[in-house]
């Protein structure tokens, strides 16, 4: 059985399929049914759909075998206290004060009052939550390197885009490393910078629209600065002063 040219060309074909998959409402289904009465292509398509479903159902599902399930649950349980290998001693020292503060901030989050629009609000909430989570021991970076030529290639193959990575040591913001994160349902790059005893997370992901100047906001005691440039969206999150975070954003934008 081979599909003819005319079969490929009936515009209603995918609608016939959508009906078969239970995706049409009553009005659409009625329109389709009127069309199908006079369309041999769609009549045959409906047969094809039923045949494939009969072939597949109840035969091919692959539930997790018991032994595998037990192995996986064991590894998940083992990973629970710290999902990533521990940081070097240097960074642990750095982060201990931040850790205590992060727990306080997480508790305070339940009491905070929303001031931003719902869309931005949930994004800043995710950003701050991600930043706090990253401050827990062992979660800060997936690749620890002060070298932008190590960090940038590390993202290749891990993300569907290539984030810009800049070294800002000369401006007082040394690059510490990078990691992968998920925000608003998409994978994003997180670049980790240091500033004195503080950590600045810079999140980056692609966006279609042009560029916007840095704008600052605040959430749960954390400062956030947002801008867009070169087809990328940037959010810097940290507990440093708003003024200093703004200086970071300016240094980053000015760096080659």
């Amino acid at each position, binding site marked *: *059985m*081979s*599909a003819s040219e005319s079969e490929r060309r009936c515009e209603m*074909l*995918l609608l016939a*399929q*959508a009906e078969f*998959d239970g*995706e049409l409402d009553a009005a659409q289904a009625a329109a389709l049914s009127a069309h199908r009465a006079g369309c041999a292509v769609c009549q045959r398509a409906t047969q*094809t*759909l039923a*045949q*494939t*479903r009969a*072939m*597949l*159902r109840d*035969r*091919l*599902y*692959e*539930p*997790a075998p018991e032994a*595998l*399930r037990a*192995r*996986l*649950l064991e*590894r*998940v349980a083992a*990973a*629970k206290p710290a*999902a*990533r290998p521990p940081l070097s001693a240097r960074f642990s020292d750095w982060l201990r004060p931040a850790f205590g503060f992060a727990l306080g901030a997480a508790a305070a*989050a*339940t009491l*905070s009052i*929303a001031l931003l629009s719902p869309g931005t609000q*949930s994004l800043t*909430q*995710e950003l701050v*939550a*991600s930043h706090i*989570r990253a401050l827990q021991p062992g*979660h800060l970076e997936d690749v620890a390197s002060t070298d932008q030529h190590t960090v940038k290639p590390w993202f290749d*193959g*891990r993300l569907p885009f290539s984030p810009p990575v800049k070294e800002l040591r000369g401006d007082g913001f040394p690059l510490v490393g990078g990691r992968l*994160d*998920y*925000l608003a*349902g*998409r*994978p994003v790059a997180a670049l980790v910078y240091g500033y004195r005893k503080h950590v600045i997370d810079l999140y980056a992901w692609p966006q279609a629209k042009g560029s916007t100047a840095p704008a600052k906001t605040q959430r749960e005691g954390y400062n956030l600065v947002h801008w867009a440039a070169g087809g990328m969206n940037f959010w810097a999150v940290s507990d440093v002063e708003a003024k200093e975070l703004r200086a970071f954003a300016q240094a980053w934008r000015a760096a080659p």
Partner: protein
Amino acid sequence: MPAFARNDTFETAVLPHLDAAHNLARWLMRDAAAAEDVLQEALLRSLTYFPSFRGVNPRAWLLQIVRNSAYDSFNLNRGVELVPLAGSPADAEAGAIELPDEADDPEESLIKARDRCWVRSLVAELPVELRETLVLRELEELSYKEISEVTQTPIGTVMSRLWRARRRLIEAAGEAERTP
């Protein structure tokens, strides 16, 4: 402010979908060992990211992470695993030695096992983007919208991939019957 008031834990929200995660991993990867690696990586990732999960559909979320882990593994291996070995000897044995249903006589159950093995190889030969769409729809019974989320693909593309997958399957089945 629902985000911090969630009662769900990783155990109650994510782990119940382990079978679904395994099913997808097994259909994306070449063999059981590769699927186990991908599944483990996906579970560890989901454990890490669960505290920031704000969605309402943990199954689709987990499946999306499984798929990303599988694609990362393809990238690391420079695409060599994009086409699985259909009906490998191990799979054939697994199919043939499965215990018969109580109602079946042995001969009939052997035919069924061969049949299952054959359908399995037809699906395994589909290109990965058609295969994952078909598996999510027919085995996992996800809606178009959920498939679109898991595969990060527009719904229109999901619909045309699904149709192409089904048509290829029927064509391949027809050809196989003509050339025994």
